[in-house]
């Protein structure tokens, strides 16, 4: 009984809803401020110290605003899909070992989490597709093409840490990860190439430049998000921030890791700090790439993915297996 209560508390508060909510808003602020600074502008400034409350203020403001009904056969389904996407991101957060121990953990969750992330993206895609508008349809089609091209490289990249560490549990991988590289220095070059490919793939996963085609502003206004307004838009924005936060944490925990295994409270706090710092490092790199590239065209991007990224990801996977076997 106690166990169930703890689980509910955890999924509501710590790595669950409340935590993801604030992490998502903070991540949005971090990204906006960093983008601003990289472009030599101020970024959010007025709300709170250094504008840190700006995403929160935006969220509250959007909640108050009128939600314009979308032209659709099934408006309720759109709302359902958005809420589902958001809750999937929160659910994913339960698998990420923020304290060193994940709330939910089983063998194979390292494969489940990217699957869920892709599923949530496709929920947003369906939500966009269900609104009847040329722009949302085009945006949703682009998102779909991107998600399809993404799955293979993402899974094969995520398989790498699993191969390195010989474990399929996120929690375990995040504990072993950097130490296994030190023990087997032959894996380091593979790991570095993987990081490079990951940087590109993650950019497409979180729909940032150069792969921001699904909501390319100057082309299709806001892509699949065009028809959303008011509370619906607030939730979609939150979902997308949560996507950025959770994806980055996930990637950070399995590719960098280095979390402590001890069960002492201080170790847990240190783990949270380490993982959040790593998350922000990942976001920093993503923002950096976003800031130095133009948006690609969807056909060029798909070309790039199918011709270069996917073969090299699979090649890298084979290379990792060979290296591992030799060792």
């Amino acid at each position: 009984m106690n166990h169930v209560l703890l689980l509910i508390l955890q999924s509501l508060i710590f790595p669950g809803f409340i935590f993801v909510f604030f992490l998502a808003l903070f991540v949005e602020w971090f990204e906006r401020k960093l983008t601003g600074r990289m472009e030599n502008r101020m970024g959010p400034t007025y709300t709170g110290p250094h504008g840190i409350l700006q995403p929160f203020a935006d969220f509250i403001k959007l909640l108050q605003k009128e939600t314009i009904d979308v032209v659709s056969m099934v408006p309720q389904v759109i709302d359902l899909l958005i809420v589902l996407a958001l809750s999937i991101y929160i659910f994913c957060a339960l698998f990420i070992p923020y304290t060193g121990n994940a709330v939910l953990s089983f063998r194979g969750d390292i494969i489940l989490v990217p699957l869920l992330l892709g599923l949530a993206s496709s929920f947003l895609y369906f939500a966009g597709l269900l609104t009847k508008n040329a722009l949302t349809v085009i945006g949703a089609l682009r998102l779909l093409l991107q998600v399809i091209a993404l799955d293979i490289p993402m899974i094969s990249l995520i398989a790498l840490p699993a191969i390195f560490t010989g474990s399929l549990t996120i929690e375990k991988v995040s504990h072993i990860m950097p130490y296994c590289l030190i023990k087997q220095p032959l894996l380091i070059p593979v790991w570095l190439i993987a990081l490079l490919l990951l940087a590109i793939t993650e950019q497409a996963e979180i729909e940032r430049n150069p792969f921001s085609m699904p909501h390319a502003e100057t082309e299709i206004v806001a892509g699949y998000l065009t028809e959303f307004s008011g509370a619906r838009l607030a939730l979609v924005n939150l979902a997308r921030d949560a996507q950025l936060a959770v994806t980055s944490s996930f990637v950070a925990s399995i590719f960098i890791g280095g979390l402590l295994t001890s069960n002492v409270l201080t170790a847990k706090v240190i783990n949270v700090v380490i993982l959040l710092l790593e998350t922000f490092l990942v976001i920093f790199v993503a923002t950096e790439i976003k800031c130095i590239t133009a948006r690609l065209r969807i056909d060029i991007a798909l070309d790039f993915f199918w011709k270069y990224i996917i073969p090299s990801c699979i090649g890298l996977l084979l290379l990792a297996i060979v290296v591992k076997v030799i060792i």
Partner: protein
Amino acid sequence: MEGSLTSIINLIFGPQHPALHEPELFRFKVEGEIVVKAEPRIGYVHRGIEKLFEKNAYIKGIYLSERICGICNVAHTVCYCQAVENVMNIEPPPRAKYLRAVVHELNRIHSHLLLLGVAAEELGFDTLFMLIWRDRELVMDLIELITGNRVMSAFNTIGGVRRDVNAETIEKVLKVLPKLEERVKYYRKVFEEDPTIRKRTVDVGILPRRDAIRYCVVGPMARGSAVDVDIRRDIPYAAYDEIPFNVIVRDECDVWARLMVRVDEVLESINIVRYALEHLPSGQIRLPLKRSAPPGEAISRVEAPRGELLYHLVSKGGITPYRLKVRTPTLANLLAASKLFEGHTIADIPAILVSIDPCFACTDRVTLVDVKSGKSTKVSLRELARRGRE
């Protein structure tokens, strides 16, 4: 959206759209991502300016012509003043001519940098957009220093210019120019080398030389298609017959070439400003103000940042013009541009659009435009019907 996903989607750009900075409407028929038909519908910012010219005295017309297009305002006032001077049979003093060239070129730099920034933004490259616009402030400050305002220069007047520059100002300007030049050279390298920009612009929106001549495109758009025209060299006005400069022509004919023409022109303009300020003749800057003109007719042509600008002035005596006709470069370029969209993807629309540097406030002025676009609509409707039958 009509029918299933594979059928033609009507994608409407504008009158309000993030890619358009002025209200104008483009109706694109897209099949998946491919544009099969583009129809511009212009006339949203028609302000009746040509009629207003007839009601206002020549001296007020200067400020009115400035407001046809805020970005290339100096080109408009130079052109207007030249037309009026021709009718009045007066010739501005040489120092005024040099100063006109200086401000005209500063205006060109500011306009081209604005466009390059917008081009970056339309390609989704926000950082480059922000940085170019940050460095554009350098030239804005120079314009402010010389003319008294950042954009609306109000510098030219009938028979000369309204402000003189002193040695101190010249020194200040010459000090800023190298800084600007260094930044522009940096951006030139960025546009030349950046992989994502090249991927988006090279071989996009190709306008072959033959078509460029047939559609009578002007300015950087023509020069990007290997058509060697530049009013500054071909029919020199102001002090351009005495200032040495190169006309930039590229033969790649694509969006990238049109952008590169503009980057190189900025560098060329910086040299013109430097030369003109260093060789500034002394003397008067303006003739005494003349308010009325004898009956007559004049045509004045100027190389505005966007291309050839033409003013046709008819006077029947008195202090107001009888008729003033303005032909702006965007009007000349727009018809060719709407052909360029066909066969490209939706993502290329902003890139192609920005490469003609559209200025719709300029374009929407003449009744002729409406007739033309009306005609083109009819043609396309018939074509569409034919397409539907097939």
